């Protein structure tokens, strides 16, 4: 963006009819694109009684945040946000740590194994989750962890979700990071090696700091993906109490929410953290996605 736009910005062409037409088109489609989300916002801002009397497409008498407040309190959303936090934070950090270690190994030391290893990781990440869910579910039920998880098993525990997120996502991150690390000049680590630095030091103090941009991009992307996870949580968590927010919403909309306006408020509340992450870290998010062009 930066350099090109700056150079071209100066000679911005005067508005031609074609340009005006293009803007009209883009404004129109943008609004159409946002319509479902705006619809949810409008519904959430109005009390159910009003919309059921006047119909949904009508001028609102009063807008209020009551639905948001009720959705938040009735369903104990705070608790579910907490559940998501204890899953997502460790999952993102461990994924980044483990995948950068593999990437370091693969990109800096050629033990002939590396292409094969990368293939294993990358292909694993491209598989649909449902391919592995049945045995995974059984495995999680088999593994007893008395005292370590609330359920006494890997099943129905935050730990279980963290493990599968790490295992699954590290495939993609290892691939991206190894490509990134391969572009760093080799002299860096060679010099360190000759100076007698340990392998760990090379990784931790030389290579990893240079990978910050890629790590930031992947971290943003992972946070959003793991936060948004629905499938693993639906299958591997059975107690409503233990669910992260996205799958909890699915339960809540049947149990607690009796009117569509409240569901709208709940859905929007659930989306807020990802929207904040996106708006704050937009650049990282987008570059992460294009790094992950091979990601399903």
């Amino acid at each position, binding site marked *: 963006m930066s350099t090109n736009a700056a150079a071209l910005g100066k000679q911005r062409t005067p508005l031609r009819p074609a340009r005006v037409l293009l803007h009209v088109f883009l404004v129109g489609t943008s609004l159409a*694109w*946002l319509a479902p989300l705006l619809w949810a916002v409008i519904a959430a801002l109005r009390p159910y009684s009003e919309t059921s009397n006047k119909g949904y497409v009508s001028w609102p008498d009063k807008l209020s945040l009551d639905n948001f407040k009720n959705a938040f309190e009735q369903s104990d959303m705070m608790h579910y946000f907490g559940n998501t936090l204890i899953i997502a934070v460790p999952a993102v950090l461990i994924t980044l740590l483990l995948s950068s270690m593999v990437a370091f190994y693969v990109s800096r030391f050629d033990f002939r194994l590396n292409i094969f290893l990368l293939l294993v990781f990358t292909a694993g990440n491209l598989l649909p989750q449902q391919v592995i869910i049945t045995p995974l579910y059984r495995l999680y039920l088999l593994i007893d962890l008395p005292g370590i998880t609330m359920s006494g098993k890997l099943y129905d525990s935050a730990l279980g979700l963290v493990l599968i997120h790490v295992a699954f996502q590290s495939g993609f991150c290892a691939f991206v990071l190894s490509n990134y690390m391969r572009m760093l000049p080799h002299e860096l680590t060679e010099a360190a090696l000759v100076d007698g630095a340990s392998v760990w030091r090379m990784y931790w103090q030389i290579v990893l700091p240079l990978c910050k941009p890629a790590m930031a991009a992947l971290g943003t992307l992972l946070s959003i993906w793991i936060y948004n996870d629905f499938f693993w949580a639906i299958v591997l968590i059975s107690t409503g109490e233990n669910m992260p927010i996205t799958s909890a919403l699915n339960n809540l909309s049947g149990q607690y929410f009796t009117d569509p306006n409240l569901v709208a408020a709940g859905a929007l509340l659930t989306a807020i953290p990802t929207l904040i992450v996106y708006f704050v870290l937009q650049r990282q998010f987008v570059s992460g996605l294009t790094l992950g062009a091979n990601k399903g």
Partner: protein
Amino acid sequence: MSSETSTKTPEAAAVPPSGPAPVNKRVPRGHKRLLTRRDRITLAFMAGVPTVLHVALVWVTALASIALAFTTWDGIGLGSIKWVGLDNFHQLFTDNPQFWPAVQHNIIWFVVLILVPTPFGLFLAVQLDKKIRFSRVYQTAFFLPVVVSLAVTGFVWQLVYNPDTGLINSLIGANKPGHYIDWIGDPHLNLWAVLIAASWRHAGYMMILYLAGLKGVDPSLREASSLDGANEWQTFKNVIFPTLRPTNTVVLVVTIIEALRAFDLVFVFNKGAQGTELLSILITNNIIGESSRIGYGSAIAVVLLVISLAVIIPYLIATFRKERRA
């Protein structure tokens, strides 16, 4: 040092159309001798721990799916696993009223995504690549659906499709009792209703991939083309589009995989009831539904696995061959 690396934006590292990796591919043999015993142990751990975790949870379970597909198992005790050969597959192919519709729906899912939102995403990318004002704002509008989770997308679109309170029926006046159009309940309509929501998201995703691809197009190509008197469409068709080949490959693979993975939206809408069956849903229903037919569910998973690998393997071979050459 830092200046050199900071100019390499993550896009530059974009895989698979990555630029040639500079210099060195491998450490000269001699350096291996510099590694101490401790270094070797460290390295073994660094590569080993993640690999064991990934292989155990992803590949061993995928292989277990294949093995289980030839058995029946009630899930209670490992002793009740019985080998039944191809029975599960036989039953699946001949005697399951949901299987072939699910296969068909997965195919429709792919065809729709590749024919509608994908070209539209490309079109948007080309327009937004023209260095116009407010480009970021437009991008954000098209891109928001990708950020919001598919499950939440499902809830939002339910509000749009709701028969009596939904946006569409309210707008077209079909929200009076007796005149409802039941977008989600009607088995002839619901797949298309879900696909609209899926396309809504997919277009933004494709737009970003193409925008990244277009950034990589050499501006001099465009200039040369306009000097030759080509109009916008001719330039795009003959000059720009051919250079987007690597992006197109990625887009194709991503779209196929998205179509095979499709789950969240449908699950939130109607749990894959009539009209929206999908392979992923059939598998999941075998686990969280009442009846747990593990062997049978695994047989469906194997079908999904085979289709996926038919796409993944050629793609990875092509990608890694390119890498090796680089």
